[in-house]
């Protein structure tokens, strides 16, 4: 096990944050949020990885016969994917409404809600 996957997770998360902070388009911003979330998938799967392990599906392998990767983090990742799909869908719907009401998708041009 190397530290490499953890560095990738941290990099992907920070790249998403950078994209969000500098975003010029709201759909791009929602995409960047999904990038941040992708970092959590990388991290969780890296946590559960075992050298030489196979998928934790016991229909075709004898339990205990060979190492498998941790199924718990895979369950967590799946739940996380579901959560992410909900959030992304809702935020994109809100972006559509923002564009309809404000006539722009550029966060720099949204003039309400200041001070």
């Amino acid at each position: 096990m190397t530290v490499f996957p953890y560095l990738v997770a941290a990099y992907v998360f920070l790249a998403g944050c950078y994209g969000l902070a500098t975003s010029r388009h709201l759909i791009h911003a929602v995409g960047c949020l999904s990038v941040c979330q992708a970092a959590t998938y990388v991290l969780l799967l890296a946590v559960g990885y075992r050298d030489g392990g196979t998928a934790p599906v016991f229909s075709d392998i004898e339990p205990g016969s060979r190492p498998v990767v941790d199924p718990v983090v895979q369950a967590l990742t799946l739940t996380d994917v579901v959560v992410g799909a909900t959030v992304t869908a809702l935020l994109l719907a809100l972006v559509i409404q923002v564009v309809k009401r404000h006539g722009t998708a550029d966060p720099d041009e949204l003039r309400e809600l200041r001070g």
Partner: protein
Amino acid sequence: MNHLLPLLVAFPLLGAGLLATAGRLLPRIAAETVGVVVSAGTAALALVLLLDSSPPLVEWVGGWSPKASKGGESVGIVLVGDGVGLGMAALVSVLTVAALAYSWRYFDEAPEGRAGTFPALVLLFQGGMCGFAIAGDLFNAFVFFELMSVVAYALTGHRVEEARAVQGALIFGVVNSLGAYAMLMGIGLLYARTGELSLTAIGRGLDAHGGPDALTLAAFVLVLTGLLVKAAAVPFHFWLPDAHAVAPTPVCMLLSGVMVELGVYGVWRVYGTVFSGPGGIPTAGLERALLVLGTLTAAGGAFLCWYQRHIKRMLAYSTVSHVGLFLVAIGTLTPEGDDGAALYVLGHAGVKAALFAVAGILLDRYGSVDEKELHGRARELRAPAVLFAVGGLALAGLPPFGTALGKAVSEEAAGGPFTVLYVLVSAVTAGAVLRVAARVFLGLGPRPEEAAQAETKGTGEEPETHGRLGRLPDTMVVVPAVLLAAALTAGAVPGFAGLVSDAVSEAGSGGAVVTTPRWTAAGVLLGLLSTALAAGLAALAVTRPHVTAPHAWTGPVRRLQSGHVGDYVAWLVAGAALVGALAWPAVLGG
């Protein structure tokens, strides 16, 4: 009794499902009745469980309890119903009933066949918040955290035709989701270290591993970031005024009354069960982080609260500053501080929800929540005027309101310079409320002039009712009155504070016997002092507007609230770094 714990989540979710599917067949009155009945039933269940919560109830859902044959590990879902968790669930449920009662036949007629949408969303929100309050493992805490967040975004943007509402909901969604993902990264790191997800097992795992290191610190910072975003601590707070100013009034009551406080509760719970052992973060680290952030939050929130003219936004900043006071109270890491925070949260929930409810009356009657535009126009509203002023006094800490008792106990626990902070912050935030009361309901003082600086006005808001209200529905006045009465009861009934304190000490410090919080002479005097200061500030603002009007130097600070989602994300990252920097020396030293 512990088998009933999952029902706290299941009831509202089933009710929401029922309303979402059958809502198109139901007439509006039936849909709203179902909403109120289900939320009230959940509230009753939460209260019954709360009375039976000593010793704490523990339920492994579906019987997936840890087996000794498997080394005591379990991947099951655990729910823990101790006094504090169930207390929060009860508070959530009672406030949900109040919000649904307030919105009784109140919204614009929903589109044909969708009468059930709003009550269904509110029930989902209640289910998510109850689940978060009683979650005993970190991953399910995250799932419930996301559930309540997503529903809150949808509720904030419920009036999708309004430009401000959708912008506020979008900002709320992006910032809170990013915080939640940071929290999930932290949970992943904790699982990597300990192989456990339940809170107490992670704590034991960390202790078994030895002293804290970089990974523990990173996990701590990431988890705390998610919770502090929810709690709206400075500099994670920017989403809150934007969301609360635009959300429908019943939703504001829930957001300000309990959802934000659940973030504070999460910090308390996670630190107490996961990071407080020898393998966690030394107490000095959390103490420094919470006291610094709490002080910044309290002072910054009060400062910005004073300069708002948009009444709901002013109340939102007041929530920010009170969260700062809660954070300082739990940051003392003493049982007395925890008692104070618990009492303060209870009192604050009633008072703040009542104030939002009255602001909603103004919105629906005049189509505006702008202090300057409404100057003197609400003279006809006698009962709401009294409620708003009483709410302001309660916010200032006038004994014997629950807020005053919570403030007094917290002050005593924090001590020293923090006493000044508590008195000033509650005086300034309540002063702003009383100023609005004097100008809007009494028409006192000269008509305020337009300010030169850019600011969010409260004019031209769409009423949430079907057209502007002529006659006030009784529910819209009765609900805030009952909420204020409840806040009064929380402080005035002898013995209530003792019950809260027992519940907190059993859940927090393991049942250590501590002094029961009670009114002290100093607490009463300081409460009266802050009330007098608040009244004085309001009087000064009304009679000499130029003295208290925003000066040019406040501009740069106020412009930080830019309404720009990218700026808020940058602040979030900076805030996470700040939390890390504050906790780091303690980890090195430990």
